[in-house]
């Protein structure tokens, strides 16, 4: 393979990976605090449609991303209220959030369907961003650089700060954290809101990097891949980065398989399209088989916190 082929592949790969990386980081933090939010897909769709609306109305990408983060965080807080304050079942509520997000985005997005959205392009000068070689470093949307910074930030927060330690403690043993005197519910609200905001930003990636328009179900199930990715990464930010780019590679191959043919023709393009999802299932099966050996899942993941006594 030549550089001409590899560089476009890398650029597509990075773009495809960014939303699942961002959503995965948010979900990782929420899960570390002990909350399993299966509403990632729904929150991403809300983020995506809000982004489209704000960009088309104001033309300001940054404002669109902030609005998307806020809207998805608000949706996450509804989930938080139901599961944390009212102790509703997290799995059922998360699924409901996804269904809600799908429906809301379809309704809200109707007036914007099919309209072209300006892409959110590289912040670097065109000499670098458009350079046939250097664009592999400088040619990405600010969202990509943001996602990479967030990997380091999340790792640093969880491992190096006291707040991160408390968050992990809450997810590891909620009753103990409560008896020491930490607000379990409060910490989880913040973590869920962060997860929502990150999912919203992940949603922004679809119209701003990948497909510059709004169509129903724009995120095509990537929220589920982000969820699987968190498990795949064993709740570690850097492994999440590696996993996201691995999935990104598989998704990119699909695109090239459709376009190029040649060696890709071995498999029908439908199978290429199904690959990321098959890989998700495979990874989840492998991990649950391994679960007996050492599970790194936060011990209180998915359990409602009911302070007793």
């Amino acid at each position, binding site marked *: 393979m030549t550089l001409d082929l590899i560089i476009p592949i890398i650029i597509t790969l990075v773009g495809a990976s960014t939303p699942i990386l961002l959503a995965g980081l948010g979900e990782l933090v929420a899960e570390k605090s002990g909350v399993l939010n299966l509403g990632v897909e729904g929150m991403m769709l809300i983020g995506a449609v809000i982004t489209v609306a704000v960009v088309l109305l104001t033309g300001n990408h940054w404002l669109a991303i902030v609005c998307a983060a806020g809207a998805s965080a608000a949706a996450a807080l509804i989930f938080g209220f139901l599961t944390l304050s009212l102790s509703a079942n997290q799995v059922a509520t998360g699924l409901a959030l996804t269904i809600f997000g799908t429906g809301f985005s379809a309704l809200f997005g109707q007036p914007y369907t099919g309209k072209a959205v300006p892409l959110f392009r590289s912040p670097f000068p065109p000499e670098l961003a458009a350079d046939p070689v250097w664009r592999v470093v400088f040619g990405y949307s600010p969202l990509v650089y943001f996602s990479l910074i967030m990997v380091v930030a999340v790792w640093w927060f969880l491992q190096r700060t006291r707040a991160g330690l408390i968050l992990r403690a809450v997810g590891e043993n909620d009753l103990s954290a409560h*008896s*020491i005197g930490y607000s379990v519910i409060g910490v989880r609200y913040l973590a869920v809101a962060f997860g929502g905001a990150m999912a919203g930003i992940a949603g922004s990636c679809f119209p701003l990097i990948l497909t510059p328009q709004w169509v129903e179900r724009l995120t095509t199930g990537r929220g589920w891949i982000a969820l699987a990715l968190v498990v795949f990464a064993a709740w570690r930010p850097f492994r999440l980065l590696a996993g996201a780019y691995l999935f990104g590679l598989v998704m990119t191959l699909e695109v090239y398989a459709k376009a190029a043919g040649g060696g890709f023709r071995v498999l029908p393009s439908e199978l290429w399209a199904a690959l990321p999802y098959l890989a998700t299932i495979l990874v989840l099966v492998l991990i649950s088989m391994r679960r007996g*050996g*050492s599970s790194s899942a936060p*011990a209180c993941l998915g359990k409602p916190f009911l302070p007793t*006594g």
Partner: protein
Amino acid sequence: METSLIPRLELVGITKRFPGVLANDNVGFSVKPGEIHALLGENGAGKSTLVKMIYGIMQPDAGEIRWNGQRVVVHNPKAARKLGVGMVFQHFSLFEAMTVLENIALGLDSKVPARDLEARVREVLKQYGLQLDPHRTVSTLSVGERQRIEIVRALLLNPSLLIMDEPTSVLTPQEVDQLFVVLRQLAREGCSILYISHKLHEIKALCDTATILRGGKVVATCDPKVETSRSMAEKMIGAGLKDVKKAPGRSFGGDKFVVEGLTVPRTEAFGTGLDSISFTVRAGEIFGIAGVAGNGQSELLLALDGEVQVQPEAIRIEGKAAGELSPNARRRLGLCAVPEERNGHAAIGDFTLADNSVLTARNRLGMVTGGLIRAGAAKTYTGKVIADFAVKALGPGSTAGSLSGGNLQKFIMGREILQKPSVLVVSQPTWGVDAGAAAAIHQSIVELAQTGTAVVIISQDLDELLALCDTLAVINGGRLSAPMRVGEVSIEEIGLLMGGIHGTAAETHIVPGERDAVPA
């Protein structure tokens, strides 16, 4: 300091009501500086509720807490720690997947840089002669070491009152001695200690004063050094204490339950594997398995009752190979079992007692015909269990979850015993059960053995095992010691085996209480 006339802590008329229960009724007592004060009472007497109010986890409905003579309101644990109250919980508030240092940092209210914290932790460890590696992950530590984390966490705040909630229930006798050395040193330095326990000999050995609670009220304040264990126990229970009646000079029948080379690999991250466990229980014999929690007891119970299947020849019930049989098939052969966890394992809380009877007694007592439950038979049998074992329940229709711990345990024991098993395996038969119910359960086990049943008791309560068992073995790290005849073995010897030192005490020359007796 000449403040010894003012009590460090004084409780006046503390009352706390829960729906349907008066947990604390006008409780009052005081703790002097440097005093080791015992709070004694049965389960449900209100001890835990009381200390939770002192530590700010709960608020009293009435009454006041005075600290060094001043009235205080303790809003939360943080406020309590600010006053100088430290607490070591019975169920440790530790985070398994984190290191010792991270756990300690979580317990501190102020931000301390990791390096300074480590230095301070090491200093406290040295000052009190405690052995602990700050960088180990908690899940790899023994229960005694975990308790040391809690103690260090409390000591770092220089407390002037340390509350210890049932601290010795999970320790080996040697670890208990070490703990007492630390507590006495603390008291000498002027720290008051509120020591909660129901183990009378410990209170006699350690405490200066004892306040006895029963049914939420203070029934007596006494000097444990002049009281006898029996007199304190009777105050605690409020009635004469019944001893377990064991017929002297019992003889055993043939081998009923034989375990040979039972090996189960470790399956859970924080679990223990079983390493060629062998023992034989004869008809009428009560065989005890002692050990500190987490040394393979849960795994052993699962392998014995059939929840985990093993090699067919590893377990024989009345001569029949049963290792690869399911729990149901083993019940048909005559093996009944009572696991440690009452709610959720031995019984289903949301089910009625009658339905819970059907779950384990259906085959042996014909409660199911053609796939249909014979409700009448289940109800009759459940009624008999309730009557014979004096279970306080409205009837067979009450849900298991509505019973108190002791009553549910009596029901579960009765449900298995009245099936007339030829082998009974019981784990922690009286864990969290009040003394009255415990005595009844002990008596029923002894009586069952007299009818020729082979009984296996897995317990962490050494007193219980020594009172009940004919033969005793110690489990440590998934391996079982050679069986010992009760009456011919010393507590020191058992304690050393519990701590993982194999061989006899005479060979190892370790004085109980010496610090390095129990390896990490």
